[in-house]
């Protein structure tokens, strides 16, 4: 369908955007890359009175190396992040996930901050952010605050951003030496939302897993860390038996949603399979990167 009518605002500074958000609160939606919001408008699932287009705010775009990692401006396009050498060198899990987002034309417009603020739990970036404990920088009328990924994702398409706040930057930590990563997903068609996805990051030191991070996409209304499996893996040497047990623990307490793409049980089976695959691939990747 055609988009419903809305009042259109195109601020050019973060301050102007925050003023507009403070004025319109829940009646406003923020338009970043538009690759999720415009479909929602077209399907009339979203009917904001005011659309605040932040594409004209130049300061929100850019990738920069920081002391402990990488800071990515919220309006950084996904294809720009995909082509970023800084990201490839310092946050390999993010680099592995970026090419899997939608299709090429989607990544031309889609943004890092837009995807994370939209917070679709079946999408790649929320799982990566949750796995790596990314930090979300928001600005509002009362200043700036930094929100950890564990607190950012609150529920179905819902984050802890307040209505008068704007997501301005997302920070990812630098991968430690010995890190191996893998992003696994099973989808009906290449580029579709994953039926189940998994972000995996392992650190191998002297052949032993010193740190394991696993975050699922598509098994709940938020990205989900597999804490029990992570605890099991830490301190162990990679083996097929270990990964089987990790898959059992990781899927023991998830209750994935059912839809026409797959039943809950099917998703659980797929989840266990991609845990094994992901761990194998990440362990292999750690050895390759050494």
């Amino acid at each position, binding site marked *: 369908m055609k988009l419903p009518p809305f009042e259109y605002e195109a601020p050019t500074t973060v301050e102007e955007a925050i003023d507009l958000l403070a004025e319109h609160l829940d009646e406003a939606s923020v*338009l970043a890359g538009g690759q999720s919001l415009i479909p929602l408008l077209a399907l009339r699932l979203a009917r904001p009175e005011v659309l605040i287009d932040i594409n004209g705010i130049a300061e929100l775009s850019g990738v920069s190396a920081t002391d402990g990692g990488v800071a990515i401006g919220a309006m950084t396009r996904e294809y720009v992040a995909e082509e970023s050498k800084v990201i490839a060198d310092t946050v390999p899990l993010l680099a592995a996930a970026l090419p899997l987002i939608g299709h090429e034309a989607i990544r031309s417009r889609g943004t890092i901050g837009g995807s994370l603020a939209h917070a679709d739990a079946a999408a790649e970036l929320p799982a990566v952010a949750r796995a790596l404990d990314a930090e979300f920088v928001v600005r509002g009328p009362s200043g700036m605050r930094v929100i950890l990924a564990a607190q950012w994702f609150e529920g179905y398409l819902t984050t802890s951003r307040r209505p008068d706040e704007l997501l301005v930057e997302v920070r990812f930590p630098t991968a430690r030496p010995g890190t191996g990563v893998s992003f696994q997903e099973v989808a009906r068609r290449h580029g579709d939302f994953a039926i189940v996805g998994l972000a995996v990051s392992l650190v191998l030191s002297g052949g032993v897993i010193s740190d394991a991070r696993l975050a699922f996409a598509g098994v709940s209304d938020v990205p989900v860390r597999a804490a029990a499996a992570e605890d099991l893996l830490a301190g162990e040497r990679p083996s097929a038996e270990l990964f089987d047990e990790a898959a059992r623990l990781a899927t023991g307490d998830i209750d994935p949603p059912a839809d026409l793409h797959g039943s809950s049980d099917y998703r659980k089976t797929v989840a266990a399979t991609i845990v094994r695959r992901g761990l194998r691939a990440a362990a292999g990747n750690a050895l390759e990167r050494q």
Partner: protein
Amino acid sequence: MTDITLTVNGATCTGSPEARKTLADFLRDDLDLTGTHVGCEHGVCGACTVILDGRAVRSCLMLAVQAAGREVTTIEGVAPDGGLGTLQQAMWDSHSFQCGFCTPGFVMQATAFLSDHPDAGEQQIREALSGNICRCTGYQSIIDGVLLAAERNRER
């Protein structure tokens, strides 16, 4: 209504679209460039793909007002002399379409892709075109056409 000026297929164009008007509808309704096809209207089918500042984008997933000051290429701008471009001729020769509805989107997506990846092989081309839906051909002839165009481009 917002007054905008943009470059479409090399020509400066102006218009006053309503904010809610997508770039796809603006191209079709306001500029009479009906070669850009509107299929699903929510970013799934790829039929409305155009090239914005050198990158393939879905023109149903951006507002016309967001194209102000930008450079847009549509299917009408691929071979401005009225003939067929290399890719179009190669797709013609490979029977890369049946009903033709999806063809402009495939041509624009493949044009953007081949300009960045002139040496692309079949697998990369399949990946690049994976966001465009065709309900007639079964895709094989489209891939053949794009591969043939890449080959002809390299021979020139």
